[in-house]
């Protein structure tokens, strides 16, 4: 049904925005306004602060960068030197100082005189190996002679096991020997032949002992 208001304009009831609607609009405006205000506060307040903080930090970092680069350069240089040092350490730790060990063996043979044993050798063989899997690191072997009595072999090997040779070598193999020749034209006439066999300790053990003695 269509209603037509025939009253003159002056008599007609003035059209007002309904209160409810006004309230609705106000609520809408306040919600949207609040959101907008919050956004504005975030965008122009907090975000700006964070941005400026970030700028400060970036500037600080940029300021530190040359020093850091310099540090890194030094580190890189140092690492290369270190690598060479470590390599040197690794190579040197596997070496056996044969001068020292042979000198000690000669000293031992000479030190005791002829009373305990008169020992001399027919040959000498020494070898350094690096076979960690089979735990074989090398050896020193010699065919020795002693005079008069087989007990001299035991005396000698006992002295070997107590000497400085043990820094590098394990204990000698058990004493054994056989009478080899008798020459009445020489003093002493009767001699015994015995094997001297010493196994090298591992490079780590040798290094530890070196540290301990140095």
């Amino acid at each position: 049904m269509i209603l037509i208001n025939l009253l003159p304009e002056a008599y007609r009831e003035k059209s007002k925005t309904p209160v409810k609607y006004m309230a609705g609009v106000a609520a809408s405006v306040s919600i949207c306004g609040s959101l907008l205000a919050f956004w504005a506060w975030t965008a122009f307040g907090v975000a700006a602060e964070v941005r400026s903080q970030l700028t400060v930090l970036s500037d600080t970092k940029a300021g530190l960068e040359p020093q850091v680069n310099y540090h890194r350069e030094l580190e890189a240089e140092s690492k290369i030197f270190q690598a060479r040092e470590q390599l040197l350490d690794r190579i040197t730790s596997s070496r056996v100082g044969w001068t020292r060990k042979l000198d000690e063996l000669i000293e031992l043979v000479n030190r005791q005189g002829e009373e305990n044993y008169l020992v001399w050798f027919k040959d000498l063989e020494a070898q350094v190996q690096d076979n960690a899997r089979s735990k074989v690191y090398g050896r020193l072997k010699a065919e020795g002679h002693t005079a008069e009595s087989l007990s001299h072999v035991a005396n000698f090997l006992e002295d070997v096991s107590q000497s400085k040779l043990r820094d590098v070598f394990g204990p000698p193999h058990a004493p054994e020997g056989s009478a080899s020749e008798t020459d009445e034209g020489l003093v002493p006439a009767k001699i015994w032949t015995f094997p001297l066999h010493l196994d090298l300790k591992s490079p780590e053990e040798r290094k530890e002992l070196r540290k301990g003695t140095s």
Partner: protein
Amino acid sequence: MEQTDDKKRWIVLGTVTVVLAATFGYMIYHQHEELDKKRAEADQLSVAIAQERKLIKGTPELVKTVIVQRETDTVIKEILSDTTDIENFVRTLDKFAEESGFNLESAKQNQNNRRGSTKEEFERVGYRLNFEADAFQFLAFLHRLESFARFISVTSLKLRTAGRMSLTEEDVPQHSITLDLETYVYVPRSVAKEARIDRYDHKRDLLIGQISKKTSALRVSDYTYRGRRGRRDPWIDPRVPAEEDGPGLTIQEQLAIVERLAEQALDVRDAWEVAREADNVIEAMRSRTVLEEKLALIEEEVRRIQLENQLSYINAARRFNKEVVEAVALVREEMEGDGGGLGPGIAQLRETAEAMDRHIEAFEYELALQAFKTIEGKLAIAENDQRKVELVKNLRFLRSVARNVIDFENVKLEIEGVAIQAEMRPVVLINGRSYSEGELVGPDLIIHRIAMDLVEFAFRGMILGRILDPDPQENPQK
């Protein structure tokens, strides 16, 4: 109609509100996301800055480390060379052998020269050396190798001893030795770019203590080989020939004697160098006196050892000849060559006379004559010098005493007995004939006095006696 408009308005309002709220909500959400990102970024930056600050706090220490490393790298480069430089290495081996007293017979590069592994930064360079030397020459060589600036590792060695039958007095005992050694060549995978360090020299000077400490720690060999020190070579059979007159000196005693004399011979050599380089006449005379004294003493002992054949251990005898006899003779020869025009010095004459005196007192007449012979050829020149005339006369007198005693000892006198009775001239039975005092027994030989236990003879102006011994096997002389 109105109702419819209202409704529309509400719808429009609602829609607008929702759209706006959603837009603003999205904007806020987006803003917050951005903020979170930026905050996270800021946090990251803060952490990074803190780490970098911490890092650069260590820069001064790192600078020190790098300075020490740079300075010690020269030493490491020496030890672990980055150049193969094989020519120089071989030259060094040859030089070491020569300095140790032998020559290399062969030096062959090992075929298994290789890189440690694909990852490793070094290459092995191996050599096999063959040579002949005694144990101490070998040790001296090993010591030179192991204490060489460039790192050398001996990986294996074999020594075959010189057989006893192959040794003679003249030969040096030569063992046959094979030595495998390795040196290393540094092959860096990356090259160190040197960072610029301000006031480097100044900082280095401040770290000089640390640098030298590290340098010495890096040096590999810490053992000093001190040579033979009177020890026998354990690869030589030390047994001595059996002697009929019982055992003589032990091997250790013989070696000790030779060691002592070798040191004395070196001392004589030093004294000769000092005397030769003296700045002025007084200094020359003084040092020459010291030299003559030392030389006479060692020559006296050498003569005694040779006469008594004290050195039965072949190694000791060989060393004695080489390091004592030859060394002393060489000094004597040089002295004579140097001052030959002037004849022997007063000190030499005096020392020789004293040595002869000592020999005569010890009944070592042959040694006294040998001492005289060392200067006999130059006495004619010395006699022209008034200051030396008396000394020369004394020497000739001592020579004649020694000669006369030796000649007297060589006269065959079999004294069979003496007869001494009261109021009768004593009689002695010599070589089957009886003689009394004052009678001539042979040329220049007159009986001077006859006693119960002794017969004295006048021989070339000297009174010499023969002791009568109840045991006819012994015939000691006075």
